[in-house]
């Protein structure tokens, strides 16, 4: 029983990292209607900026995270402006391929700047481990912070898209880009803002990812990026609570699959569940079914 609970905690810990990445993925998809495959690599850049800020410039953790958010926000907007904006009218396949190209570009740039050697990321979380059930169940500070960050981000994103003018503009662009433009919404500025928010979230995700799993290298973001994309699809891509639930479920399934089925089949298990969910509910767990009117 204790071992089941501790596997569950580990699953939530891993899943909440996926969730925080999936939030950014899902938001950009929901509004810009494009899969930003470079999202995982913006996470990696966020990790490196935080690493430099704490190790080389001696900044306190909170300032480092803010610096990483700032750099990633600027980076996200620049990527959008240079690589995606010129393709606004192009087919979605062209944008997808550009995003994959951008992903490789970021990875190789990081290798040029910081080298290929992996760096060990010192955790920015300074909260002691929580002991439950006479110390037999441990919950690390990183897990608590990640879960908390997820909840805060989810609530603030939901409020932002629901209550503010900019947020409503985002939803309008998501629903019908042409009609939104006719209503006087600046579509380009709205999409840029989406990328800015998504990339700032990526920086936070990068810091939390590397705090829990401390090896930082140019390819750090790619696998978690793919898993988080899966999580976003699982939860219903475009849905903010869906990304959170999808991410956490994915982590729990992966860990329990590894623990009780086979350590080799953890991933196979995750993707098998995804296939089943998509067969039963093609829009994902919380995805909305949109009827196309002709």
């Amino acid at each position, binding site marked *: 029983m204790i*071992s089941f609970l*501790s*596997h569950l905690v*580990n699953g939530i*810990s*891993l899943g909440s990292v996926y969730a925080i990445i999936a939030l950014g993925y899902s938001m950009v998809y929901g509004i810009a209607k494009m899969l930003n495959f470079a999202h995982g690599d913006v996470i990696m850049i966020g990790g490196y900026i935080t*690493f430099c800020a704490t*190790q080389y410039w001696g900044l306190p953790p909170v300032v480092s995270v803010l610096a990483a958010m700032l750099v990633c926000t600027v980076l996200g907007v620049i990527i959008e402006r240079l690589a995606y904006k010129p393709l606004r009218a192009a087919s979605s396949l062209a944008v997808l391929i550009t995003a994959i190209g951008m992903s490789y570009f970021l990875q*190789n740039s990081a*290798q040029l700047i910081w*080298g*290929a*050697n*992996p*760096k*060990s*990321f*010192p955790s920015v979380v300074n909260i002691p*481990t929580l002991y439950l059930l006479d110390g037999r169940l*441990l919950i*690390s500070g*990183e897990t608590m912070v990640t879960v908390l960050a997820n909840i805060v981000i989810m609530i603030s994103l939901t409020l932002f898209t629901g209550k503010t003018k900019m947020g409503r503009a985002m939803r309008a662009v998501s629903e019908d880009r042409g009609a939104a433009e006719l209503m006087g919404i600046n579509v380009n500025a709205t999409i840029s803002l989406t990328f800015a928010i998504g990339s700032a979230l990526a920086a936070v995700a990068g810091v939390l990812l590397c705090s829990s*799993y*401390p*090896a*930082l*290298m*140019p*390819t750090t973001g790619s*696998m*978690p990026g793919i898993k988080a994309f899966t999580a976003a699809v699982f939860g219903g891509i475009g849905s903010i609570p869906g990304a959170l639930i999808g991410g956490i479920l994915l982590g729990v399934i*992966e*860990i329990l699959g*590894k*623990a009780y089925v086979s*350590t*080799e089949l*953890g*991933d196979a298990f995750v993707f098998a569940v995804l296939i089943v969910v998509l067969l039963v509910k093609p829009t994902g767990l919380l995805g909305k079914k949109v009827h196309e009117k002709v």
Partner: protein
Amino acid sequence: MKKFFAAVLAMALAMSCFAFASAEGEIKIGVIGPTTGPAAVYGLAVERGAQIAVDEINALGGLQLALNPQDDENDAEKGINAYNDVMDWGAQMILGTVTTTPCIAVSADAYEERVFMLTPSASSTKVIEGKDNVYQVCFTDPAQGAASAQYIADHKLATKVGIIYNNASDYSVGIYQTFMQKAAELNLDVVAETTFSDDNNADFSVQIAECKNAGADLIFLPIYYTPASMILAQAKTAEYAPVFFGVDGMDGILTMEGFDKTLAEGVMLLTPFSADAEDDLTKNFVAKYQQAHNEVPNQFAADAYDGVYALYAAIQNAGITAETSYEEACELLIAEMQKIEVVGLTGTMTWAATGEVDKTPTAVVIENGVYVGVK
């Protein structure tokens, strides 16, 4: 416009011919390894280590060597492309490839075409099996696995052993298998065998919990240092402190930037090279490497350095010159490799006809953030 592009293309082609044009009389050595992608750290280390050795040799006057490093991205198909590139350049022998997977592919071609290969670091027996022209600078995986089990049993380090290995890597699986064989012979009690793969190498909580619940007091880690650093950190989070025992892939963990060295306190490993060794050869090499690249060399760099010196010794003895064809050089080098003895950074080496190296692994334990030799 078309003409302009054609002219640019022609220029580029002409330039690329000059790029690796070597001076008259140099012996040409092709180097193949991953210099981009996730395994780039190994390929870059080999390229840099080899270059230091070549610079030293060329500075002596006399025999001159030229290197042409090509990237294989740790991929079998790209390894063959890189092999074709260095052969087109006129390579007379190959130092490489760095990693096992492309090495198996490239060595098969090199065997067919009679090109001599000395791999600094591809340690699988599949690399040398049935090929008389392929030699290794590093230990073979079986040698490491058996030596580790022997060492653990001889020094009574553990009553119950757990293992975490990478079942997607020939290197890790090879060491694991021979470790298990030897452990059975020596009655070592292996209580937990857990695995991970390259795509799933961040979360080790399940593997650690399994070893912990089985009561393992030593965990054998036949893996590279990046996942090992994650395992050490996560074992600490889980408040589990067995003895960790690694092999040569663990080497480099202390030089990982930002690594909390207290995590590695008490970690033991078998390794042929330690950057902290006090002999003049190591000190000279580490200083040159640090000056040029601003980082501490790992075992791959040392293996490559030794590899160049082994080739140098064999070339001199065999009287190979820039005019020797690669087929001739191959037969001459095969004969010489079995005769030479090279004192290098990774120990005193001799070679068997199988291509396997003979040198002594040394056990070190990490104390206060540095390697300390174990008697």
